[in-house]
């Protein structure tokens, strides 16, 4: 099917650019209509002017996708299923993410019912810029008692605004259920070859859409669809969801065939949303052990995942496991991402939070989801940082490090190009753990010190707290000899570079003694007794500092002034206290 163009639509519009729809022009409206962001009804003149009635109807017909959209739920809490135009997502995009409904039933105690509904209603996980949620509650009539069912439906409705699916093959139960949630426009499950006429009547009276079902029999399914839709009822199709040898293949075949018939063969009678019911796996599991129930949930999750990939527009599941929800909602987010949006983000230097000249500099790739995960991890942990996004052609860290799109030379070039050295007064780069293999090469290429960060950006806070420290021991700048000055500092990033960078910039060769003080700056290290005359003495002995130089003069930052004499006493060295900012000046003298 050729995709509609805005001009195809424009011809049906009033062409007055009246602005009632909130857009500047009728052409803009045409674009929004194509992207399913607005509906024909949103053009008020077209929808209300009797003279435009034919244009309205024709346009409505024109923009109806081969899989028609069906809405259920009320009070502004609607969910739309279907509305799809293509078989394969790369051909355009999938529009309405598979709705996920979770079951409760009328033989649960009131307490159980409320607990489950609250779980379903409240479940949410934030990932890649979106809050993932569940979409509907499916209430089953296990009792087959209309009064009992109505009571359960009422209780559910009182505890959630989510759209509802009323599930019973007994029309009396459905009728009783619908009665208590009028105005919520629930979806009815289901019309079969046996009950369709009564169910159709309930649906027509209440204005509800209906799931038609006929497991394993697509002729009957299509017949039910033809029959109910002929009466103006919106339908969704459940071809049967089965787990087992051979029957699973029937299920996957049915979903694929129905979708292809609708989209590629223009079979309007099956051009409706498809409903998968992985909850069928729970048949006969009433008395199952806890272990067997978990195993059932595991299989159910897997089957549901398969149907998200294969055209299900609505899934009804029974598992209430958090990992089930997480898996399915994540998969759905992936599959329904618009593939027309390129996965690469703009490379460059970005400020996350309010970084200053001492904030860490982190490297990542310009693969959209990597960049956005790193960014949101930093933001959520309230870390101020400079983020350098390298152009890896939109490929993530692991694959680009292996494929060569991320390499030392490219990072070094980016550091220069983005003038990172002008933003910070340290020279420390944090690279992703998955790019650890470039660390050495990158230090040579960039002249910066490289710190290998965690493999997962979620661990950055821990990393910054406990691992982002200059290596302790004897470090140096330039090419020092026995006459070069010796400066002592703790293994605190900020203090280390306050010493190192000015020396580098002035081209001074010097020895820097980096003493392990759990990463504390000199001032706090002295106060916490992590930097004492004894630790200094032990360091000098361990590292054989006396062999490096012929003189016996040690320079310490002014924050170490309180222990100056003590150091002199235990080491026999002359200690000079210098404020960091005057360090190079002093040494030059």
């Amino acid at each position, binding site marked *: 099917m050729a995709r509609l163009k805005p001009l195809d639509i424009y011809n049906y519009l009033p062409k007055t650019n009246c602005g009632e729809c909130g857009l500047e022009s009728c052409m803009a409206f045409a674009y929004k209509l194509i992207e399913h962001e607005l509906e024909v009804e949103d053009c008020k003149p077209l929808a209300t002017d009797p003279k435009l009635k034919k244009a309205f109807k024709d346009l409505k017909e024109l923009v109806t996708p081969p899989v028609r959209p069906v809405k259920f739920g009320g009070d502004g809490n609607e969910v739309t299923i279907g509305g799809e135009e293509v078989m*394969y997502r790369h051909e355009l995009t999938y529009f309405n993410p598979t709705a996920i409904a979770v079951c409760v039933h009328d033989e649960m105690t009131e307490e159980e019912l409320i607990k489950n509904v609250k779980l379903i209603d409240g479940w949410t*996980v934030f990932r890649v810029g979106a809050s993932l949620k569940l979409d509907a509650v499916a209430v089953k009539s296990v009792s087959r008692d209309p009064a009992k069912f109505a009571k359960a439906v009422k209780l559910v409705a009182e505890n959630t605004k989510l759209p509802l699916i009323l599930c019973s093959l007994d029309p009396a139960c459905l009728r009783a259920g619908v009665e208590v949630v009028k105005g919520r426009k629930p979806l009815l499950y289901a019309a079969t070859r046996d009950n369709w006429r009564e169910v159709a009547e309930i649906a027509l009276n209440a204005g509800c859409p209906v799931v038609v079902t006929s497991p394993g029999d697509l002729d009957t399914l299509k017949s039910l669809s033809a029959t109910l839709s002929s009466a103006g009822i919106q339908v969704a199709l459940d071809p049967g969801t089965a787990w087992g040898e051979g029957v699973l293949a029937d299920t996957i075949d049915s979903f694929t065939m129905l979708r292809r018939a609708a989209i590629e063969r223009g079979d309007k009678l099956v051009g409706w949303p498809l409903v998968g019911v992985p909850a*069928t796996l729970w048949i006969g599991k*009433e008395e199952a052990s806890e272990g067997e129930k978990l195993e059932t949930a595991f299989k159910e999750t897997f089957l549901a995942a398969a149907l998200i990939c294969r055209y299900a527009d609505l899934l009804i599941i029974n598992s209430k496991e958090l990992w*089930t*929800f997480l898996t399915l909602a994540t998969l759905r987010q*992936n*599959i329904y991402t618009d593939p027309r949006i390129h996965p690469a983000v703009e490379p460059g230097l970005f400020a996350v939070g309010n970084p200053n000249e001492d904030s860490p500099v982190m490297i990542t790739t310009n693969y959209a989801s990597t960049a956005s995960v790193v960014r949101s991890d930093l933001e959520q942990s309230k870390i101020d940082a400079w983020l350098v996004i390298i152009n890896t052609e939109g490929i993530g860290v692991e694959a680009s490090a292996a*494929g060569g799109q991320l390499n030392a030379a490219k990072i070094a070039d980016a550091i220069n190009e983005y003038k990172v050295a002008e933003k910070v007064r340290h020279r420390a780069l944090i690279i992703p753990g998955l790019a650890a293999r470039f660390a050495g090469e990158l230090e040579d290429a960039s002249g910066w010190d490289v710190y290998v960060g965690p493999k997962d950006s979620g661990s950055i806070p821990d990393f910054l707290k406990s691992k982002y420290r200059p290596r302790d021991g004897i470090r140096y700048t330039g090419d020092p000899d026995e006459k070069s000055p010796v400066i002592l500092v703790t293994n605190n990033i900020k203090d280390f570079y306050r010493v190192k960078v000015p020396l580098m910039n002035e081209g001074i060769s010097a020895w820097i003694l980096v003493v392990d003080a759990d990463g504390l700056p000199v001032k706090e290290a002295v106060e916490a007794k992590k930097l004492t005359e004894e630790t200094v003495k032990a360091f000098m002995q361990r590292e054989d500092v006396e062999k490096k130089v012929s003189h016996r003069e040690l320079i310490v930052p002014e924050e170490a002034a309180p222990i100056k004499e003590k150091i002199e006493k235990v080491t026999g060295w002359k200690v000079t206290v210098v404020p960091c900012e005057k360090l190079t000046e002093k040494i030059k003298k």
Partner: protein
Amino acid sequence: MVDDETALGKRILEILGEYEELELEDVTLEAEELVFRVIPGMLAAALPPAAKARIPTSLIEQKFELPIEKYPGEIVEVQFGATKAEGGSRKKVVKIGGEKAPAFYRFEFMNPNRPVVTFDVFDMPISLPKPVTEHFEDVMSDPADWAKKAVNEFGADLVTVHLISTDPYIKNTPAKEAAKVIEDVLQAVDTPILIGGSGNPDKDPEVLEAAAAVSEGERLMLNSASLNLDWKRIVEAAKKYGHNVLSWTQLDVNNQKKLNKLILEAGLPKNRIVQDATTAALGYGLEYSFSIYERIRLSALRGDADLQMPLSSGTTNAWGAREAFMSDKKKGAEWGMQRFRGPIWEAVTALALALVGCDVFMMIHPASAQIFKTFIEYLSSQKKEEIPPLLNWVTARV
């Protein structure tokens, strides 16, 4: 609503039903065309939902036509392993590919070979999430034992031995020494094996060449030839010693086509090449892999000769997702039990790619492999299991 007049006429005849009465609303009848052969209800069925009729008294019987297509292209069959008669020493060989229709379009064609699982084995203990190591910690110091366990206890169709210790930044094990591990593993298991390098582009060609030499005639697979290393050396080794090659690119159909072409031009037959377009895990770009694998497979079936090789996935990548590797202590309250969360993450990553045509899955967790293999079995079996009526789910007290 209906494509053309002929279709309308045909449809009308198909969908004749019995109706109590007909109420027409908003319907323009063009008498010339329809004359008086209109039977109540018929129009309503042909023109839903604008025409609102009362509910029909009996079902409008329909036939669903199977939408079957023919594809001009097909995927080559690739064999892993060679028996004694074929010049190797394997008791079993594994065949993949040979598809004539998209994956699991059984209504069109039952593809001849099912997707296979190869377990990852490393030549040195490496850091893996706890749910994985608890199954392998007793064998991680010996790749031969590790491979044996994967085959004997976890039903691996194949094993992939990754010679990661050869990386100059890890242990820099010399290529010849690393190749001995391949000999050990070939002794330990009778399934075909695949050989991976360390991922170091400078060292891998040498390592894979040495491994290919010690396993001459075994028809293993060398992982991988890629554009950023001396792929020619790897292809030459495969030609000389009778192995297959994995053509690996990063999420780019054009690059995949380019590399396949180069390898073909270098003289390796098509039926000794497998493609890997890179697996991004569930939640971490799976959609890109999904669509790229799908595009490659559909293009191949539609006749693109440079893409008609089976596809492979490094599914173990899924354990790099925090949803898989983070412990219950850290994330259990939010994400649920890692015992299930980890394996399902890997299994669903495999599943999505299997559904778009991937043939080989490099996996690591026994439970992931098991559910995935069960799924494949259920889809591929010629038998049909007896199951209780599906609609009983509505009244199941669970």
